């Protein structure tokens, strides 16, 4: 763990964090591990899907699509093999929750995947783990081996006659492979570029077969929802954003970390009561509430709920739950450069606007960060971001353009100040030379 737990947390997914050897099956079994799977088998597939729907669980990977609805899209009686794919390619800057779940309670993940496997009549599942999470692969593989030994994976699971094999597949350092269709391409051994949609993975996913792709935290949540019931989970959030989520808060707060909070939590509460507020003497400058892909919020815009719909209404997004807080010591121009550099590096290169757009934006922001440029360049950044948004092949282009556009719009003054300061320095340097 990164941080001491907060008394404000509602620890459902993180209930076993801190328990000795919580990643081993004995600890898991001592805490009702795999009871959810047994219950799912008892309930049957239709009841499971209804329970997930009733929980109002929204996808925890970033898009926030209603999980129960996604589960209902899989054609369970298709003659093609059905696949369960867990997206463990956690790469959104600001997000560090899936790694904790895998590290501290991998069995709740395996259980959630197995529940999905049973529900979808699937016989094969894959956990696509980000390549940088090398150290987690060993933990996962040990856990999977234990699950096999205890007949929660493998042949004739719990006497049902249903077989399910689960594999771990390592990525190789590409943010774009967190995009579900690029992930599937990568899993198939191809380049990690996204696919045309439609058709969607639900019908034409891995090897063009019906595939359910969900985030790590989504699968873990399902485990608890099935075991303890949808209402028990849903009650922690507003009507359409049920339950708790692992909120990752970083930046200029006194107690940065990962906290499992109800989705009814507000941003000020998380920042101040849970994360200890700003450092003494500092004032709030900006917040990105949904990872680096989300439009930035000014202090006066920060009084908002952290559920999916409230943030969308505020012109930003909840995304993968990575909240970044900036105080008055932050250089917004450098921050903008840092963000665009990430997307430029991660752009897969498939489509023109993202490949060339992120490169161009980075070059302009590099200059602006050095103070070289004029307000025309700042305006150009805004225009290019507008020309990229909605026109790229996948959401990475939007993720690059949306926050960048919001920063130059809302913090125009800061750019102006930085450019003017640099110009003044140049002038006085020249004066020194002449003088």
């Amino acid at each position, binding site marked *: 763990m990164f941080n001491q737990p907060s008394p404000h947390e509602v620890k459902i997914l993180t209930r076993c964090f801190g328990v000795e050897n919580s990643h081993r099956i004995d600890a898991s079994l001592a805490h009702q591990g795999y009871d959810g799977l047994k219950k799912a088998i008892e309930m049957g597939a239709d009841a499971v899907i209804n329970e997930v729907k009733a929980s109002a669980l929204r996808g925890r990977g970033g898009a926030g699509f209603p999980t129960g609805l996604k589960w209902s899209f899989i054609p369970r009686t298709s003659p093609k093999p059905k696949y369960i794919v867990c997206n463990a390619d956690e790469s959104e800057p600001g997000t560090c929750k899936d790694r904790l779940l895998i590290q501290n309670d991998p069995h709740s993940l395996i259980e959630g995947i197995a529940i999905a496997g049973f529900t979808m009549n699937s016989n094969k599942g894959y956990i696509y783990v980000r390549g940088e999470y090398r150290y987690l692969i060993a933990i996962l593989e040990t856990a999977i081996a234990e699950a096999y030994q205890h007949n929660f994976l493998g042949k004739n699971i719990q006497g049902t006659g249903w077989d399910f094999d689960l594999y771990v597949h390592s990525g190789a350092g590409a943010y774009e492979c967190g995009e579900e269709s690029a992930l599937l391409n990568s899993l198939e051994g191809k380049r990690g570029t996204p696919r*045309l949609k439609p058709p969607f993975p639900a019908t034409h996913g891995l090897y063009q077969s019906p595939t359910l792709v969900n985030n790590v935290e989504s699968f873990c949540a399902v485990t608890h929802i099935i075991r303890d019931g949808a209402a028990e989970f849903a009650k922690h959030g507003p009507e359409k954003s049920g339950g708790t989520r692992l909120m990752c808060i970083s930046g200029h707060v006194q107690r940065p970390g990962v906290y499992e909070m109800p989705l009814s939590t507000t941003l000020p509460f998380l920042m101040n009561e849970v994360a200890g507020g700003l450092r003494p003497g500092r004032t709030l400058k900006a917040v990105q509430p949904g990872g680096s892909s989300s439009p930035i919020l000014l202090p006066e815009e920060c009084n908002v709920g952290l559920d999916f719909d409230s943030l969308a209404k505020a012109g930003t997004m909840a995304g993968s739950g990575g909240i970044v807080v900036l105080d008055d010591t932050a250089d917004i121009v450098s921050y903008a450069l840092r963000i665009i550099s990430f997307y*430029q590096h991660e*752009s897969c*290169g498939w489509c*023109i606007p993202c490949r*060339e*757009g992120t490169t161009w934006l980075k070059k302009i922001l590099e200059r602006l960060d050095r103070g070289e440029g004029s307000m025309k360049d700042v305006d150009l950044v805004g225009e290019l971001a507008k*020309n990229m948004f909605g*026109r790229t*092949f996948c959401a990475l282009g939007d993720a690059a353009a949306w926050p960048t556009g919001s920063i130059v719009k809302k913090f125009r003054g800061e750019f102006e100040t930085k450019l003017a300061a640099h110009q003044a320095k140049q002038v006085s340097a020249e004066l020194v030379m002449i003088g």
Partner: protein
Amino acid sequence: MATTTAPPTVINAKLNGQDIQTKPGTLLINLTKELGIEVPAFCYYEGFTLQAACRMCLVQVNNSPKLLPGCTTMVTEGMVIETESPLVVEARKSMLEFLLVNHPLDCPVCDKGGECELQDMVFKYGAGESRFVDIKHHEPERAFSPVVYYDPARCILCYRCVRVCDEGYGVNALGVINRGVHSEIAPNLGDQLNCDECGACIDICPVGALTSNTYRYKTRPWELKHVGTTCAHCSNGCKTTLGVRNDEIMRANNRDSSGLNEEFLCIKGRFGFDFNHHAERLQSPLMRIDGQLQPVSWSKALSAVAAKFLEVKAAGGKFGVIGSNRTSNEENYYLQKFARHGLGTNNIDHARTGDVVTLVDALSGKQGKLATMADLYQSKAALVIGSDLSQQHPLLAYELRRNWRHHQARIYAMTPGPVREDKYAAMKARVPAGQEIAALEGWRDQLAKEGELLILFGDSVKGEAVRQLVDFGESLGIPVKYVALVDYANSRGAIDMGLTPELLPGFVPSQKPGLTMPDMLDGADLDVLWIVGANPLERRSLTGKRPFLVVQDLFLTGTASEADVVFPAASAYEKKGTVTNVTGEVQRLSAAVKTMGAKADLEIFGLLGKEMGLDLGIWTADAVFAEIRQNVRAYNVTMPILASGGAAPTTPVNGRVNVEMRPDLIQSAGDTLFTSGSMTKYSQVLNSVPERPGQLYKPV
């Protein structure tokens, strides 16, 4: 209660304010193309996988602010499409602006200038100035092969080259490496291409990223005269458009996608023209004086040969004529007329590469059994026997592969070794030459289930085996068409025009069959042997009495070196005429260039005939072809198609061909993609590629 309605047969939509109708399943970009409205696109290329990667084709649909790619959007009922709204215009402009961020301003030195799709689009849809003032990302140029060069900076990553190589040709030599703005096209194995070196990637590239090393920096496209003609190499009859400047062929391609082959060409068609101006092209007649071949004037050579021929004829001596697989129909017709009427002999033959004769005889009385090129693309099933199609008949292979890709055609491959068709064959078997007919019985049930079948067979099926094959085909109870595979540009025409001792033009049996080629070379005791465009003495000598040897050829081949008189001949790219391809389709040859000193074989025949005082008719291609159309069975072809550069099918011959034909005379030359008889020996480009000579039935 659910009601089922029949699927619609017509979709109604609105395009730029106009009401339109189209078929269900029409892509937006094809709808606009049909109506003459341009939706610009780079990565969309008809016939290959859809991508929507370049985002140039974004259009506005149903007034939504989010634009949709026209290349992957189906037109649906009631759809409102705007291709010229302000939002679309702005999107195109910005897409081009993004593209020009890193694309270098190489136009002054780039081969593609003047025929570049990016240039065209920027003129039409782009801004006059770029707002980019930073440093462009640049990588140096790479050489993928002696023929294919790649400039990463110019590449717009449309992936057309990757798709044409993989999906079109089944070679898959190109792929993409690195990520983002560092992405590059690269050979899939190592850093050099191991491929067919066909150059399709170069021609399909919309910009100057992939360029031809044989053409680079030599000229500008608007300086070239473009002459459409038929490729001089294999029997498939691809149209090739030669780019000529100052009587020199600078390049060949088929970018206008005309002809049977559309955009397809192999290395021979695209690069194998350079034999034409090899320094060793014969440019003067040669005569053996004091044991040595010496250059002499045309009049001296012609009068010497004419005198000899007349002398031998008067004395009742024996003539032998060996014709060519490559000379035009007019030349073949005139030559056999010269031999039969002028010299009074039926000793005329050529190197036969496929058993067309037995096939035509076996099909006697049946209609519509000979396949045309279109059947390769349309037939629901095809059976390939004894041919490494991609090597020996690359256009046929390409059409079959396209047929499989687009129509899920079922391909059957029965060959002595692995072939490229194996990858997608419905059934495949390794069967040695001569055992195919027996092996086919094992496939009878499977083949009989097909809706129709196209059977292509190589030289391992000949004589009686051809009759057995036709019996087999006809017994399946489904419509079957056939192709007897032959090797060279006019191998079919050689047979059709009667360059055979037992057949007159049009498959008419001769009353007095003459000597075959092997017989002429072994102990025939000929007085005169006249060899036109053939090289039988490259690897073997004549036996028996040594005849007066007259040879017509482009180069001083092994055969020409033995001659008493050599006439310098013009190549297929230097004369007018017609040739007939393997599927019996007639196409014209156009004279693109001239080599000083050489004359078309037809002209040489005419001049010789005149010198001898013979009356064989006018020796222009037009006049001879008019006579062919009158006199030769199957050649009453449609002139407008031919004259406009199209392929006119010969009407299939119907009736028994009563001849005593020797199947042992049939032998394929076994050329690969990189060889074409003695001609490609003189092609610098073909000699430069590491893949030459290539290998048939290469093990995987």
